[in-house]
């Protein structure tokens, strides 16, 4: 397929890896924000192509992973009401809430449906006027225009049985929170190419300026990611901090203006809790007052909940790039994609799931070698 195959060309990838190795003279810690990029790195073993000096840590950019536990619990509570049809993106279904997940609710008889696009949820509402249809509207800036369009469409049609349970997060405030954190080790960021496709690059320019940290807007194929790493290494080695755009085929400086306009019309910025990380000021989107009739929180008077994560799950530190999934004692044993303790093991964009799918054999092999060498002693 055009614009995919050529960015998976191993010849070019090797060329880039050689160039990165030649450009690197000292250790650097780089973070990719987006879970889609994490998966590409693991799937193609890009971290193993890089020189030892370059450490890649994985960021919080998995929308499913950072959706608060309370939102999952609210979705389950709504789904179990007989008058409700709960519509969700597929990868939210197995995300554990505090006691259950949407799959289990479905097995208990809840009407939970999977949609590829939020517009399908609007269609379901239109076809079921006697039921209340709730769409679990999660995501980063990439998904906000689509979710905003669903709300806008429902409002312009005058639908009275459609609402959104919103959990929307924004990338730049999360980078800011990481940078001011005492534990931060990150020296350069690969910014998420699809978020920037929608939002443009201006917000990242101010991050570069405020923290003197290089940021490269990167794509999602192996060649894209290696090219972004090379751009970061060249800047770091030269002592520079600039914003660069590797993903020019999709990202423009101003972003997608019609999408930004609709998002601004439907949503407003507010404080947002991130699962595993906590509250980050002004880091989320909520429906505007004009859309109150489409806000599931108000329609159903869900109130506030506060619940704790399972103690054994270290996803909080994984999502902040402080730990690797394989540092977790439960990884691959008590926590698997079939039976996850935390959200990053569930999502197709979660770091734990990426390591589980592409690296767990390597981990087992390493452990065996370790045990053998201990026994030999």
């Amino acid at each position, binding site marked *: *397929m*055009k*614009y*995919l*195959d*050529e960015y*998976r060309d191993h*010849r*070019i*990838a*090797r*060329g*880039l890896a*050689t*160039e990165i*190795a030649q450009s690197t003279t000292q250790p650097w810690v780089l973070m990719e924000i*987006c879970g*889609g990029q994490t998966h590409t790195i693991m799937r193609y073993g890009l971290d193993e192509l890089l020189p030892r000096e370059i450490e890649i840590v994985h960021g919080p*950019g*998995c*929308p*499913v992973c950072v959706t608060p536990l309370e939102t999952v619990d609210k979705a389950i509570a709504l789904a179990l009401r007989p008058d409700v049809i709960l519509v969700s*993106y*597929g*990868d939210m279904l197995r995300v554990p809430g505090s006691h259950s997940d949407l799959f289990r609710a479905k097995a208990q008889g809840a009407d939970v449906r*999977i949609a*590829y*696009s*939020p*517009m*399908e949820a609007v269609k379901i509402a239109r076809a079921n006027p006697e039921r209340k249809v709730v769409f679990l509207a*999660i*995501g*980063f800036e*990439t*998904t906000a*225009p*689509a979710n905003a*369009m669903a709300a806008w469409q429902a409002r312009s049609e005058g639908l009275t049985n459609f609402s959104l349970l919103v959990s929307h997060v924004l990338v730049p405030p999360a980078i800011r929170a990481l940078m001011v954190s005492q534990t931060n080790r990150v020296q350069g960021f690969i910014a*998420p190419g*699809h*978020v920037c*496709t*929608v939002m443009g690059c201006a917000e990242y320019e101010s991050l570069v300026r405020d923290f003197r940290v290089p940021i490269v807007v990167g794509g*999602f194929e192996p*060649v894209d990611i290696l*090219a972004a790493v090379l751009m970061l290494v060249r800047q770091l080695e030269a002592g520079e901090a600039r914003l660069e755009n*590797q993903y*020019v*085929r*999709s*990202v*423009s400086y101003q972003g*997608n203006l*019609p*999408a930004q306009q*609709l998002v601004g019309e439907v949503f407003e910025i507010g404080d947002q809790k991130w699962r595993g990380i906590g509250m980050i000021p002004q880091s989320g989107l909520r429906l505007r007052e004009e859309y109150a009739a489409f806000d599931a929180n108000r329609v159903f008077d869900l109130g506030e909940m506060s619940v704790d994560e399972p103690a054994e799950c270290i996803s909080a530190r994984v999502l902040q790039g402080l730990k690797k999934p394989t540092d977790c004692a439960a990884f691959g044993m008590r926590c698997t994609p079939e039976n996850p303790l935390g959200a990053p093991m569930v*999502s*197709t*964009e979660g770091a734990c799931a990426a390591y589980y799918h592409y690296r767990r054999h390597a981990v087992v092999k390493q452990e065996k070698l370790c045990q053998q060498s201990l026994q030999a002693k």
Partner: protein
Amino acid sequence: MAVIPSVVLTVEGATVCLAIPGKILEIQEQGPLRAARVQFGGIVRQVSLNFVPEAGLGDYVMVHVGFAISRIDAAEAERTYKVLEEMGELEAELPPAEA
């Protein structure tokens, strides 16, 4: 073709942050809403064009949860790809990397 499974996963599996490129086969005007039939490898899906009014027949668009979010800039893509390709050609002439 090795790329197909992941494409199927993205189109059918409802992942939340991935977007994939597809080619516009046909434009469908539906009142104020504008949609298109878009081809992803062997799969064709209906995609909303509301956010990329400039996209036309034969263009490639990045698609996320049923919405085109950008029209791929073919000239920019070609220009940057050429630079990358030259790097790959250089690599092919070098001896294999040491383990």
